[in-house]
């Protein structure tokens, strides 16, 4: 109920989606730098795949030589050769 109200108010007032929603904000610069904001936790990580838990489901980054450059509680910087990005788990209603 509250989430629906929040979304409606956000739409009326023309707020950006990252302010209104709870989902992650993912910024990809080229193919080598990824900034993930508003994630919940790290599910799994290796040099080939990094999986993060977010409010919108799990985000999966695939690639080569992936490394977590900086880990903060709400922000994550990933570097490496990115080849794929996919969401798993929940469906958008």
């Amino acid at each position, binding site marked *: 109920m509250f989430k629906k109200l929040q979304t409606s108010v956000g739409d009326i007032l023309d707020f950006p989606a990252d302010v209104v929603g709870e989902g992650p904000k993912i910024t990809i610069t080229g193919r080598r730098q990824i900034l993930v904001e508003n994630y919940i936790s790290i599910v799994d*990580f290796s040099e080939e795949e990094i999986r993060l838990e977010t409010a919108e489901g799990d985000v999966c980054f695939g690639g080569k030589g992936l490394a*977590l*450059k*900086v*880990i903060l*509680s709400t922000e994550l910087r990933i570097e490496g050769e990115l080849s794929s990005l996919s969401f798993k788990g929940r469906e958008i209603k």
Partner: protein
Amino acid sequence: MFEWLRTFWYGRILFLARGDQLARFLNQVSKDGVILYHTQKSERGMRAQLTLADFRRLRHAARLTHTRVHIVAKYGWPFVAARWWRRKGLLTGIVVIATVLTVLSQLVLSISVTGNRNLMSSDVLARAETLGLKTWVYSKSLDLNGIAKTLQEQLPDAAWIGVERKGTDVIIKISEKIRPIIPKEAGNLVAMHAGIVGEIMVIQGTPQVHEGETVRAGQVLITQEPSLNPPSTSITPNSAADNSKPAPLPSAARGFVRGRVWYSAEAKVPLAENKVEESGKDATGWGIKFGSRVIMVTTPNSPFKQARQEVLSHSLLPWRNWRFPVECIRVNYKELRTVHLERSVAEARQLAEQTARTEVQKKITPSVPIVKEAVKILSSNPEAERVRVELETYEDLAVYANP
């Protein structure tokens, strides 16, 4: 740059974490407020970096997730400082050496005299010492210009004296007056130039000229005190060498004779001439010199038809009598061009005057005041301008004759 400095200042620890719940370990660490950098998984476990201050805070997450943490490397100023702190003797030695070198570099450690031919270096050094210029004194407290001025006043045979400090060395540069060579007048004061005597002051000896008299170069101005010994026992170099107890030599004449002296120089400048001058374009070539062999790496030949070459050699600092055999050389090629110059009479006259003035200035001892100046145009030739510059000075004429 600043990020690197910050990292170095706070110190970094590179660690390897091993366990089955590494993702949970990361989540717990970030929940605890610890920032991890460069986290990467490998076959041996997980490698990551964190600041020195955060390292102890890993313990909680490691215990919860049964993760073992091993330090791989330590990097940064806190570790360097700790290492140095353990070597207090070495640290003290470095500080002492730096202090000693700093203090010593502020002192005068050596004094040398250059440019003197007839003046004795030991005499100059002794006079300088009485003025405060001696070894082991604080060099910044010395008034080098004042010392140079006083030395010049004390040494009449010196036309110019300059005192220069180069690090811990002090060099007394002397330019001596050119003295006429008259063997029989040794000990007498003679005229250095032809001129008219303006004032005469005798400290010791007998004056041979009077004010207003015209003297020629080499003429005796003040003679020394006559010897008390009979002429038969007068001292000659040979007899002095033979005699074990030579009679005292008569004291040399002392005094000042100031007068007016004239100098002149002529210069001729044609109204039209072909002159070779630099065009302003230049090129640079680099090469290596090994002994007498030169290998040019860039620009082996001059790119200009007509050019002047300047070769600059850059060698490593020599150590004692050893020099590094390979030198780096730089060749500057400056383009030259032939220019046909057409001058007006006024321009040619001005240039001739300038050239003549430069020439005549070379003949005058520096710091001698110029009393009068005259420029005479001698030209009657339609193709060139001839100008003579005549300068009148008022200077000390008396110098000791060279034996």
